[in-house]
């Protein structure tokens, strides 16, 4: 009986782990969206204020977006590890 309970708990733990991975991936997407949204918003404001440096601003915006996305991808990698390893 206790073995059955332990087995059931193990099965439950796996499901909870997968649910946790899914929630983590969603949170990572929210974080990336918020971060890149802010970057894009301030970039657009600066371009509106000074249109002649829009090329510079665009390259900096893309670099910053790639870095923020990198942080989100760490969370994705951890969630993938939980799901598939």
């Amino acid at each position: 009986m206790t073995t059955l309970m332990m087995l059931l708990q193990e099965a439950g733990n796996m499901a909870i782990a997968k649910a946790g991975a899914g929630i983590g991936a969603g949170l990572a997407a929210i974080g990336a969206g918020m971060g890149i949204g802010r970057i894009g918003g301030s970039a657009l404001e600066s371009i509106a204020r000074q249109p002649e440096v829009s090329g510079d601003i665009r390259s900096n915006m893309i670099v910053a977006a790639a870095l923020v996305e990198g942080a989100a991808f760490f969370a994705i990698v951890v969630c993938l590890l939980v799901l598939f390893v």
Partner: protein
Amino acid sequence: MMRTLTKFLQITLLALFLAANPIFADKPEETVASQNATDEAHHENKKFNAGELILEHVSDSHEWHVMTLGGGTEHERHISLPLPCIVKHPTQGWMVFLSSNFVNHETHQEQEYEGLKMDEKQHIVVAASGDKVLDLSITKNVFALLISLIIMCAIFLSVAKTYTRRVGQAPTGLQSFVEPLIVFLRDEVAKPSIGPKYERYLPFLLTIFFFIFINNLMGLIPILPGGANVTGNIAITMVLALMVFFITTFSGNKAYWIHIINTPGVPWWLKFPVPLMPIIELVGVVSKPLVLCLRLFANITAGHIIALAFFSLIFIFGEANAGVGYGVSVVSVAFTIFMNFLELLVAFLQAYVFTLLASLYFGSAVEEHAHHEDHH
């Protein structure tokens, strides 16, 4: 309005509780499964497993699977390119053979070959004991690396020859494709980041950029010779990051190490008695290349997984109902085209970001000490 809101919340919570109630959990379907087993023995009708398909496409393997004809019926034929396995057996020494030896071609079953077998993780192990062997095989990623190496050499050697033949003339042909990229990298990435000594690091930066860019692009082509997930292989990105780490460490001058061990402008109590600041800086020295590695790996692998998942939607819906499958395929193909354009942007962007960050690290390593205002 608040009463209806709380009532709505109560009903929602009750519904969720009922739906998640373990009473409704699935019991193992023994009878249905055995019936399916006999059906499978007759028709080899494998259910479409999207997770398996995706993992198979983004991971490495000992053969290059090109296509499957007549999938899901008895006439299923796999067209794949078997790749050579180079293995050092613990007792039998070096063995070189094609990976197709591991599959019996009449029965399509796995078989052993000379005391070796392929386990379920696609690793080659000793058949009897399951011990590991030294495996230096040409796998799919190695073969794709060699292909992109040939492409890179073909492009750049021919462009270099064109430059020596046509000195001082306007660029033409392949030159006009390569020159803007190289000039962009030299003037916008290397020179501003590294400063006057940029020429020492420029060959490495250009090689890294074009290596990552061309491998990313090859990964987007769905059929041989493209489609191997090279830059999404964490071993490959880790080697690139290690190279950046070694170059940064070995070209660090005194100012660089002083910035790490004894950061100027930081209060003394962060460095002594508990050297918090040096520990943080040392963690930064290790974590910066690690972050480079993970960023490239995760971006490329995630892009491939998403594109493959969009395609798998067609087959998942098609299993339920062929008509729904055709309908979903319109949406799915549209989304996959969009994802592929995004992946093109990501291919260039990740190569650019890797190169930019590498050049920033090199720049910080060779930077001359110029903070005179911190000296007391």
